[in-house]
């Protein structure tokens, strides 16, 4: 009993060791299972974002091909509405298998009417946006991600001219490709890969479970076995403990026909089989690790690519913002230029008005000058007439002088009687001289006047010439100003045109910016997802390595 008890104690001790081993095996299994599940989950999540990208590219290509087909069908000849309808339904049928859809929205052909048109039913945000862009005619097509019927879809829209019989109608062809359907495919593939992995893991676990179950059974039976068997059992135990220690290379110490021998041989077979299994597990785990490493490195590459993409998109976003800013500034400059041009035109107009007034004034001045010249000439003639009067006055003075002489002579002859008369004669003589002086004065005044008039006529002539030149200059200036004004007036609508264009460009840039920001967001989330998946892969790798370590612990025959 003592031995038995000691054996029991040993057995107890051994069973304790097995329990620890079992516990370890159980834990590693659960870790494996958990790890696998985690891997599958993480892989699913990571691939989800990546697939979106892939889906978008693929969908875009597909949609473009579709639209091209449609266009080539539609525009080879001007189709009737029935033909168009047929084509649409045909395309729809073609697409249905791939989970895609085609929408055809009838639009007024006039872009201005289109702006507020609801088409055939209320438009959603994407359609409105697409319509706005297409209305401007700046882009041939419009694409983007948008929710469609509760599913995130890639959508592609083009504007087609309407059917032959209704010229006032355009068609907005929209191809919708839900991302879910594509994603499902990829998911399916990934899930199948994960299933295989899970199956393999399960198989390994089953084997381990079976082995350890058998070991457990043996331990239970061993308590009731013979002491003889104890040595053998001891040997077997040591063998098993070696095997339990991981050395699966040692051979069974004995073989026999008895139950212990059979057990030993069976154990040997089992250990060999286990070794083989472990070997296969080792191989498998190595493969897993290596494939995980590969996967991790490819994930890293992907991360770097996505990072690069993100970087590029942010650069693009910056560029778009710069374009937007510069286009805005150009727009404001154009506006101010328009204002300046209009102001210039106003000034030129007022200048022209001023010049016209000046021209009119100049003409008035010319007329006045002519009148003055005429008056001056008249004045000159009158002055000439005064010359005749001067002659008359001189004659009168001369005759008066003669009279005074004769009177004085008569008075002298009359002697004392003529004294008074002599005084009168002297007075007459004096009067005659005064008259003569008066005629002299008049003559000189007339001469001065005539000189002044001649000078006036001359200066008037000069003035008339100057004014004529002035009029000529003013006319030239007015003509030039008219030309300037015409050119400025021509310029203003051009400015407006440019401003409008820039405004539309800025709108476009705005949209571009928005799209790029979307893209950036997507890229950023991709990066995050890839980082997460990297992290998961790394964790997985660690786990796989841990598992490998555990598996490698077993020594097996190569």
């Amino acid at each position, binding site marked *: 009993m003592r031995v038995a008890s000691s054996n029991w104690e040993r057995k107890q001790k051994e069973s304790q060791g097995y329990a620890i081993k079992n516990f370890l095996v159980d834990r590693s299994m659960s870790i494996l299972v958990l790890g696998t599940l985690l891997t599958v989950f993480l892989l699913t999540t990571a691939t989800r974002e990546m697939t979106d990208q892939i889906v978008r590219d693929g969908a875009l290509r597909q949609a473009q091909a579709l639209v091209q087909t449609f266009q080539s069908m539609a525009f080879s000849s001007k189709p009737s509405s029935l033909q168009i309808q047929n084509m649409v339904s045909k395309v729809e049928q073609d697409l249905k298998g791939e989970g895609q859809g085609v929408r055809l929205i009838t639009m007024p052909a006039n872009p201005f009417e289109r702006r507020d048109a609801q088409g055939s039913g209320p438009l959603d945000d994407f359609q409105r946006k697409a319509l706005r862009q297409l209305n401007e005619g700046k882009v041939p097509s419009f694409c983007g991600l948008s929710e469609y019927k509760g599913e995130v879809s890639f959508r592609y829209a083009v504007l087609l001219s309407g059917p032959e019989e209704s010229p006032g109608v355009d068609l907005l062809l929209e191809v919708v490709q839900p991302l879910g359907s594509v994603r499902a495919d990829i998911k399916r593939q990934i899930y199948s890969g994960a299933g295989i992995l899970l199956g393999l893991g399960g198989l390994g676990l089953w084997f381990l479970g079976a082995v350890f179950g058998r070991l457990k059974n043996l331990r239970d039976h061993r308590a009731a076995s013979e002491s003889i068997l104890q040595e053998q059992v001891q040997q077997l135990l040591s063998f098993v403990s070696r095997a339990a220690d991981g050395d699966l290379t040692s051979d069974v110490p004995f073989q026999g026909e008895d139950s212990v021998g059979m057990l030993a041989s069976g154990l040997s077979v089992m250990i060999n089989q286990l070794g083989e299994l472990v070997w296969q597990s080792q191989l498998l785990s190595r493969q897993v690790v290596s494939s995980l490493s590969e996967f991790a490195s490819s994930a890293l590459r992907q991360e770097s690519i996505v990072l690069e993409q993100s970087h590029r998109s942010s650069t693009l976003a910056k560029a778009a913002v710069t374009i937007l800013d510069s286009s805005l500034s150009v727009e404001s400059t154009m506006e101010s230029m328009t204002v300046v041009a209009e102001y210039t035109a106003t000034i030129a107009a007022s200048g022209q008005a001023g010049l016209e007034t000046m021209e009119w004034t100049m003409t008035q001045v010319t007329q006045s000058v002519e009148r003055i010249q005429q008056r001056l000439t008249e004045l000159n003639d009158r002055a000439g007439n005064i010359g005749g009067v001067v002659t008359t006055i001189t004659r009168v003075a001369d005759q008066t002088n003669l009279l005074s002489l004769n009177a004085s002579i008569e008075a002298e002859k009359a002697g004392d009687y003529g004294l008074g008369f002599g005084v009168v004669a002297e007075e007459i*003589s004096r009067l005659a001289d005064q008259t003569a002086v008066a005629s002299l004065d008049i003559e000189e005044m007339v001469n001065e006047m005539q000189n002044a008039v001649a000078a006036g006529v001359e200066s008037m002539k000069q003035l008339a010439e100057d004014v004529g030149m002035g009029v000529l200059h003013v006319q030239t200036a007015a003509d030039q100003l008219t030309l300037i004004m015409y050119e400025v007036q021509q310029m203003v609508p051009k400015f407006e045109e440019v401003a409008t264009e820039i405004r539309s460009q800025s709108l476009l840039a705005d949209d571009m910016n928005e799209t790029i920001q979307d893209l950036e967001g997507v890229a950023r989330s991709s990066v995050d997802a890839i980082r997460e998946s990297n992290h998961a892969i790394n964790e997985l790798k660690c786990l796989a390595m841990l598992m490998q370590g555990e598996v490698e612990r077993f020594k097996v025959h190569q």
Partner: protein
Amino acid sequence: MLYLVLEIDGECYGLNALSVTEVTPLVELEQIHEGPEFLAGLLNYRGRPVPVLDLRRMIKKKPCEKRYCTRIVIVEYPRTTKTLTLGLMAQKVVRSVRVTQEFSPMELRNAPYLGGAVVERGRILHCLTLEKILSPQQALEVFG
């Protein structure tokens, strides 16, 4: 005594007003081609032909210019038994002057008609002696 002043090129010759019949303006004279040089022509004086002497011609050897102030002085020329009407044409006759002082006597052989001189208002006034205005030979040429 009142003297009629006859100016010839700035020189003043006085003629006693009492010996003057009338002063007439310059008129056109009938030319006498065969007559002596100093005879300016014949004046139709109120229907009477009167020989006119050109005093400028006589004194300055130049004919009188036709000006407003050129006048003909009608005088009665004393000739031995009777007086003859004679016209004296002078360049400028526009004033008379009353002379109170005596003429300083003068006797020039070449100019016998100058009967003396007096200074009047700062200018020398020669006195014309009517009787000697023509030399006997000249008088003979004119009146025969």
